[in-house]
């Protein structure tokens, strides 16, 4: 009896114990293998292929060229500015939604979600119509006497930033909201009864505890906005070339597969770095409270 129990208690591999839960992921993994992993491998392969077999010439062309280095920097700085703008506008908005009651919460949620249901192309065309020479903004500026002739706004970096923030703001608000919503209001009350001013309570309790949401939002918005294609090409086009636009041009116009796939690999590397950095930060944040302060 004891011997049998001891044998049974030996840890067996999951599949031996009849625990097949992991198998539930098989269909999704098979699908992702075909539509994602295989094309990705082909893309990486083609980025490292020259006329005479293996070659890193594609990468050398990009990293050794001022123009393409500028393109990479354009994408990264567009990502940084969009992310910063979304964080500044979205973080307080997440609190407003989380703390709103009843009817107001529904209204605020609708304001965040409705833009998501409108295609990016439609939204971007809307921006283009509003910002063009005879658009609404110029009409208002002239009418109010703030400008004596129409201002050029479309095809400027400023209009691009404004449009990008508009498109990606919900992706900042939603992760922040989901964390802020779970914060126990009694923690702020406890801080107050201990003598903490509203600012001290926010900076030492609320803000640190909301960081996981902010980090997630920053990761999502930065990766998406670095890789954005539609909004930059419609709002600014060739004046502000990003990695996605160079890729599209390389594939569609130049038929330069080596250039396109090498640029894609670099963009992918940026995305992988962002994912690794955010998950490392998230794990550090989750382990807080264990270390001495």
């Amino acid at each position, binding site marked *: 009896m004891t011997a049998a129990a001891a044998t049974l208690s030996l840890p067996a591999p999951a599949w031996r114990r009849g625990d097949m839960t992991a198998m539930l992921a098989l269909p999704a993994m098979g699908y992702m293998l075909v539509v994602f992993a295989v094309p990705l491998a082909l893309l990486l392969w083609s980025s490292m292929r020259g006329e005479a077999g293996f070659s890193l010439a594609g990468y050398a062309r990009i990293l050794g060229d001022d123009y393409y280095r500028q393109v990479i920097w354009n994408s990264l700085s567009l990502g940084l500015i969009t992310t910063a703008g979304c964080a500044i506008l979205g973080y307080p908005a997440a609190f407003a939604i989380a703390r709103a009651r009843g009817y107001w919460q529904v209204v605020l949620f609708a304001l965040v979600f409705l833009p998501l249901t409108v295609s990016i192309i439609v939204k971007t065309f809307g921006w283009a119509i509003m910002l063009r020479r005879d658009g609404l903004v110029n009409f208002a500026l002239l009418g109010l006497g703030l400008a004596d002739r129409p201002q050029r706004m479309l095809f400027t970096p400023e209009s691009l930033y404004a449009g990008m923030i508009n498109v990606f703001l919900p992706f900042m608000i939603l992760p922040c909201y989901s964390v802020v919503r779970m914060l126990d209001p009694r923690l702020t009350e406890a801080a*107050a009864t*201990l*003598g*903490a001013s509203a600012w001290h*309570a926010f900076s030492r309790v609320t803000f640190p505890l909301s960081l996981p949401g902010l980090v997630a939002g920053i990761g999502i918005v930065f990766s998406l906005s670095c890789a954005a294609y539609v909004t930059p090409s419609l709002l600014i086009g060739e004046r502000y070339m990003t990695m996605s636009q160079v890729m599209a041009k390389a594939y569609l116009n130049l038929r330069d597969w080596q250039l396109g796939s090498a640029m894609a690999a670099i963009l992918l590397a940026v995305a992988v770095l962002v994912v690794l950095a955010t998950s490392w930060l998230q794990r550090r944040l989750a382990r807080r409270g264990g270390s001495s302060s």
Partner: protein
Amino acid sequence: MMRLAEASAATGAALAVRGVWKRFGATQVLENLSLDVAGGEFVSLLGPSGCGKTTLLRLIAGLAHADGGAIVVGGREVTRLPAHRRNIGVVFQNYALFPHLNVFGNVAFGLHAQGIRDDVKARVMQALALVRMGDFAERPTGALSGGQQQRVAVARAIAVRPSLLLLDEPFSALDRKLRETMQVELKQLLRQLGITAIFVTHDQEEALVMSDRVAVMNAGRIEQLDTPQALYAHPASLYVVDFIGQSARLSGTVRGTDGDWMVVDTALGTLRAARRFVPGSRVVATIRPEAIHLGAAPAGANAFTAAVAEMMFLGARTVLHCVVEGAADDDRLMVELARLPDPAPHAGAPVTLWFRPEDVAVFPHP
């Protein structure tokens, strides 16, 4: 307001609540409520949920603000001060420990918030030592048991040396055995430190065990504020009788007087009680189960012949359910005996029950 503050400073009251009102929408939560607490005193606010006890606690802490009236703490009027300038410690029901800080960080939080830089470590360790959590300073709060979290919450609140400590049902999340240990521990600690404490609970036993005085609350008012002994012996209303301990309730009508006593007709027959109502009044007479005795009645006692319906042995005491002769079967009298007579009565046996007229508390019929 100034006069009020001076008055309470002169009497040495640690807390004076004066005619406080609070309304949430159309609901009157607190109604012209007043309460005085002396320095070092432990006062419980006891009542069912919705009676306003937690609202009163939040008003005192400054986490909510009164619609009218004044709150004076240690001679200083705080009615309109925000919570962080009141120096009133609170132990919350769920403890509300900061999850991103360890035990030390939690206890040090108040000292840092108040700009205290000197001796922080010594003061934190001293507070943790008082609740016997000195060895846990570097632990994350998530790894603590409920009782340990409660101790940390107390240490965090007392580390800033508050002028008043408020406790909002701090034991409700603990199991019964641990709760009893923690009650004794907390009571000893607060007495040792001389901290004035207001304790919110819906558990009458807890209130009686812990408190110097108990305020029984009902619908936004204090029904009675007294020592546990006085509340039990001299309840001021039927509500307090029902809330503290158990009692038999007998509806009846005052028939007349008999010397110093009045005679009340009830479903069990007539009984005598202290004279308080004019003949014809509809009243409710209440008798504590331990005031009812078995055996030959002395002269002048209320005596009934009854049959034992149920007998329940509870270790230190025995509870009998008796049906009085001539009364309906469900009109039972509960009798609590510390010691069973010899021979012990058995179910169905006829017994004589008696209680003294002065042990009958009579209230107007609601």
